[in-house]
């Protein structure tokens, strides 16, 4: 983009590694180190996530049947996964019957090739885009650029990210890490025909985006979108949005291409009554998003006259094969989990090094990529959680993210070829031996008590690695001189009370 040249400084951007949109950059702890040092970003995130948390709680508490909706959403998703082959075939038949064309893509490269061919056939050199996680996941914009096609992001936040040469840090609000003043600077320095004297008033910034994009909408021949839902029964595709940029893209161009993950299918039209309540309230904390477009194939004279649906695998069948992990495919991309996550709130989305950050990203990304390769950066993601469970409580389709995280930790450590000895593994094995017998555990605690006596009531303030990972910021408690069980054993023994045969499982 030539508008970048000679422009004033824009606030620093995060890692700009060559694009591998599903996973780039270092391990989570290493990336988090840099993010934690960025005080401005933490302030921005804290403010934004707290705003959205309060709104979500308000509008979910308002519905007396919220929990029943979550249960139904969860059940529909579980049913969908069980019947996925049949539902996909049904969807394909319904879309085709209504004049649409269905394509199948095994991976990102195949999807990118399909889209490029459609754009070429339409004779277009530029396309307008509705914010879509699927097209980000496959790196479509970069691919199109390499093929000589300019892809214009039209969602305000995506536009901010694209203008800044930044990367999205949130699935719903990709520029959540930016505050209004940073956005003003990005617009002022990088948007063509920017109004003079642009202030940081969000309304003014939104109006600048409106003016910037209007001509693009009116002249575009091809639009590219994702989808929130695709109904197998009817072939209906739904896109939820707020600004109207989605409607512009889904209505004005002659050709529409929708790239949709195979897990986005829902069985029946009626199922929309569940998700149209769950998604808006969970994502932006509104009773309903301002705009939803639903279309079924092609409608003569109304909207695009050519519709292509690209059904994308790209690792989804890999995730589906994991009976616990597959629940990650139930995700409806509302982002409630990241908005309530205390880890995300501190590190931001870039630390996850993936288009899917936050708690859902920590379970989805490793499964889409597979854990067999034992790639350290990918394998670090399931560990990026304190397991506080706030995500599970917030999830509109009740994905048990903590359980999936713990399960994927096991896979991250043990998938692939044979045993991989590590310091942690050795320590865990030793601990397991001690902790599977009361007698052995007593001896282990005696070692601890001995240290307690040596320290004589002082707190430990500094330990060598790995203890330093604790003591860098925290003291350890005063070690007792005796464990509880040894304390009990020292006092006079009472008469037998039938403490149980099970109680004597150890050899003490």
């Amino acid at each position: 983009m030539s508008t970048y040249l000679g422009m004033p400084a824009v606030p620093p951007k995060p890692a700009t590694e060559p694009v591998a949109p599903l996973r780039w950059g270092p391990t989570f702890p290493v990336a988090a180190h840099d993010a934690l040092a960025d005080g401005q970003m933490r302030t921005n995130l804290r403010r934004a996530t707290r705003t959205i948390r309060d709104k979500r709680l308000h509008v979910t508490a308002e519905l007396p049947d919220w929990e029943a909706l979550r249960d139904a959403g969860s059940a529909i998703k579980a049913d969908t996964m069980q019947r996925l082959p049949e539902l996909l075939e049904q969807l394909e038949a319904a879309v085709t019957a209504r004049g649409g064309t269905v394509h199948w893509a095994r991976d990102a490269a195949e999807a990118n090739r399909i889209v490029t061919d459609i754009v070429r056939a339409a004779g277009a050199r530029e396309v307008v885009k509705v914010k879509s996680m699927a097209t980000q996941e496959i790196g479509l914009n970069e691919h199109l650029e390499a093929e000589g096609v300019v892809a214009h992001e039209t969602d305000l936040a995506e536009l901010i990210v694209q203008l800044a040469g930044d990367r999205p840090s949130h699935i719903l609000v990709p520029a959540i890490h930016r505050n209004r003043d940073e956005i003003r600077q990005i617009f002022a320095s990088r948007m063509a025909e920017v109004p003079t004297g642009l202030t940081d008033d969000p309304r003014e910034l939104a109006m600048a985006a409106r003016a910037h994009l209007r001509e693009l909408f009116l002249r575009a021949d091809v639009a590219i979108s994702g989808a929130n839902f695709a109904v197998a029964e009817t072939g209906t595709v739904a896109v939820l949005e707020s600004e109207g940029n989605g409607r512009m893209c889904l209505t004005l161009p002659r050709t529409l291409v929708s790239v949709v993950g195979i897990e986005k299918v829902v069985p029946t039209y009626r199922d929309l009554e569940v998700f149209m309540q769950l998604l808006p309230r969970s994502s932006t904390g509104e009773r309903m998003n301002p705009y939803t477009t639903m279309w079924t194939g092609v409608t003569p004279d109304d909207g695009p006259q050519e519709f292509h649906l690209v059904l994308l695998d790209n690792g989804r069948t890999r995730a589906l094969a994991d009976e616990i992990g597959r629940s990650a495919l139930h995700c409806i991309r509302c982002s409630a989990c990241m908005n309530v996550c205390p880890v995300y709130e501190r590190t931001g989305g870039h630390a996850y090094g993936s288009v899917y950050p936050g708690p859902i990203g920590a379970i989805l990304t490793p499964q889409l990529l597979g854990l067999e390769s034992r790639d350290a950066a990918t394998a670090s993601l399931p560990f990026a959680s304190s397991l506080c469970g706030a995500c599970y409580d917030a999830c509109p389709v009740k994905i048990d993210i903590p359980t999936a995280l713990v399960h994927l930790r096991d896979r991250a450590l043990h998938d692939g070829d044979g045993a991989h000895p590590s310091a942690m593994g050795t320590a865990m094995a030793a601990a397991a031996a001690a902790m599977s017998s009361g007698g052995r555990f007593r001896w282990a605690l005696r070692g601890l008590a001995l240290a307690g006596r040596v320290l004589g009531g002082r707190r430990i303030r500094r330990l060598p690695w790995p203890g330093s990972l604790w003591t860098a910021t925290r003291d350890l408690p005063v070690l007792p001189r005796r464990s509880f069980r040894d304390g009990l054993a020292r006092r006079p023994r009472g008469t037998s009370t039938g403490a149980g045969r099970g109680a004597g499982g150890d050899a003490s």
Partner: protein
Amino acid sequence: MRIAVFTTCLVDGLFPHAAAATVRLLERLGHEVVVPSGQACCGQMHVNSGYPRQAAPIVRNHVRTFWPVAEGEWDAVVAPSGSCVASTRHQQGRVARQAGDPGLARAAEEVAARTYELSELLVDVLGVTDVGAWFPHSVTFHPTCHALRMLRVGDRPTTLLRAVGGLELVNLPDADQCCGFGGTFALKNSETSSAMVADKAASVVGTGAEFVTAGDWSCLMNIDGALSRLGAPVRSVHLAEILASTREDPWRPPARRGTRAASAASARTGRAR
């Protein structure tokens, strides 16, 4: 009632005064207390760290040790820890099944169904909210994530605290936010964990309370460690210690009470017959 105490490995080794307080409290309320000596750990650390296979023998030991509760020999098992109780309820069955031992899984679920976190036992099983405690201090309460979200203990702990004589309960801002402990998370992602506990410690200090309490020494150890490093005057105390404190036998710092306090109790270690 005859109640078995599941001490938990962390409390047994590092915070014996919390286990002693649990025993004192239950005996004061007129119950017979048993502390089975075969117990060690619930397996949570291994499961949460990605070592569920190593957790299987730990679970087996736990279930064997506490099986008498399933046979009616004891009326209940209680632990002074929300996360360990949550592990027995939500993890042990899965660990056993994954290890190919469905019989152990069923047994684990039977034991877990009679295992309670302290505030659950007091309020739901024993039906008491005023335990006759006396603790003349200002206290702020951190609810801990697993008690809050996996056990749904709700307002049981604060109901108990409000009934304590002389105690002034001070609201903790952002109480439901995680302290950043998360077991090995505190080591594997120590910087993020530190950022989280720094905010929690600041919230605690901001209350101006003399004490911070929780139903789980694991989270409390994290908060206490950060408070200590800050040199903050706030002291950390387990919920059981507050509830065990009376006018006649008031709370004393663990160093001065030591484990000898336990000897005042008539609790018996469980032994094989």
